[in-house]
């Protein structure tokens, strides 16, 4: 499985098979049914190079009952300072409930996914259009300080080692009042088999500061390496697992709340899905429609991407920076020191692009 990070890069390198002919020639496959922002993000020169298993943006889930009990109200379009205030009020470690869950686990696809959306909406950016690294700029320091303070004061215990998996378990077991993460969380959070908080949740768009929206865009997708010796067989399986019929199969066999979300528009017209997804279908689609990888930041940037910088070097750079952020959350370093180190890594990547210009 790959994503909308790898797909355009590897299509450009010739490392992925063009799937457009397969998708168009497979009866009933209907690639035009994929959610437009996801389809575009998995395309290169207008052709699909991977197909979405699920698609996601990010949003904020919160426990309606906990807020009500505390006499608090979730704004329809919350700002990050408002969310921090709510987290402070709701934080109740004596009863095993943290005010909020936020990822702290190292990995560019782990803590940097939520953090980068916060960076974007606070007005931060990784690089200027001429590749000057910006990780020690006042905006970047401010936003990482905000994130680290929020999660260390009112977040989950052991935050530096918590990623999506740890947060989904914690929130689904009633141990957090809010959680900002992938919209695909709903398959677990609203699943009676996996969650003790089914039906108790409200969903609002990703909190903002300076931008109108800030949700990310991500898809776990399937592609075929050009080196594969079984390309037709690979497509058979990929077509099966990303088809409308597969979504029906999951619903019928395992439950409608477990249908992989965010890949196809038609999913949201399945009556049984619409019924179980009433609380989160519209917030999911709204978030996915608003996510624009070409215009995610307040200030101009040299590469596209919302929660990542769309360059091959980001996998390594992001991993290193995410380790620094995690160390700051763990209290092993300060935010300033972590960002000084990170700026050094980002400088070398930026310089390699400056030399090419």
């Amino acid at each position: 499985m790959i994503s909308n990070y790898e797909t355009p890069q590897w299509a450009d390198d010739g490392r992925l098979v063009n799937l457009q002919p397969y998708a168009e020639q497979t009866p009933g496959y209907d690639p035009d049914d994929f959610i437009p922002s996801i389809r575009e993000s998995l395309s290169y020169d207008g052709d699909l190079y991977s197909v979405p298993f699920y698609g996601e943006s990010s949003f904020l889930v919160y426990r309606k009952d906990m807020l009500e009990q505390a006499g608090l109200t979730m704004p329809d379009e919350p700002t990050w300072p408002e969310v921090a205030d709510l987290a402070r009020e709701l934080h109740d470690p004596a009863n095993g409930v943290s005010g909020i869950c936020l990822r702290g686990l190292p990995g560019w696809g782990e803590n940097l996914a939520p953090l980068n959306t916060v960076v974007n909406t606070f007005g931060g950016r990784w690089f200027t259009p001429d590749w000057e690294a910006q990780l020690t700029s006042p905006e970047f320091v401010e936003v990482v300080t905000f994130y680290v303070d929020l999660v260390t004061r009112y977040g989950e215990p052991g935050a530096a080692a918590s990623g999506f998996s740890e947060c989904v378990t914690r929130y689904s077991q009633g141990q957090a009042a809010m959680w900002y993460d992938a919209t695909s969380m709903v398959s677990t959070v609203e699943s009676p088999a996996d969650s003790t908080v089914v039906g108790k949740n409200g969903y609002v768009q990703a909190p903002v500061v300076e931008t109108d929206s800030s949700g990310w865009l991500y898809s776990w997708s399937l592609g075929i390496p050009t080196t594969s010796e079984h390309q037709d067989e690979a497509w058979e399986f990929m077509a099966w697992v990303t088809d409308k019929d597969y979504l029906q199969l999951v619903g019928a066999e395992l439950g409608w709340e477990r249908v992989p979300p965010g890949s196809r528009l038609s999913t949201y017209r399945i009556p049984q899905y619409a019924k179980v997804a009433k609380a989160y279908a519209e917030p999911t689609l709204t978030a996915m429609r608003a996510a624009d990888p070409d215009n995610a930041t307040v200030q101009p940037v040299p590469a596209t991407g919302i929660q990542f910088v769309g360059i091959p070097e980001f996998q390594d750079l992001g991993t290193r920076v995410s380790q620094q952020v995690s160390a700051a959350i763990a209290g092993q370093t300060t935010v300033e020191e972590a960002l000084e180190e990170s700026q050094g890594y980002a400088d070398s990547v930026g310089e390699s692009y400056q030399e090419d210009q």
Partner: protein
Amino acid sequence: MVAIVANPQMEDAIELSDQFEADHPDIDLQFVSLPENEARAKITASVATGAASSTS
């Protein structure tokens, strides 16, 4: 061979893939299921060296 991410929806797909195999007796599916971070690193390495699975 399918390199897949060990998230809940993908575990469901592995469970349901018996039905795919029943309909496609000529295709023998093998899954390599890895946590997100590990999957990203391993798939990138294998695609870079050409030692790739059939489906990434």
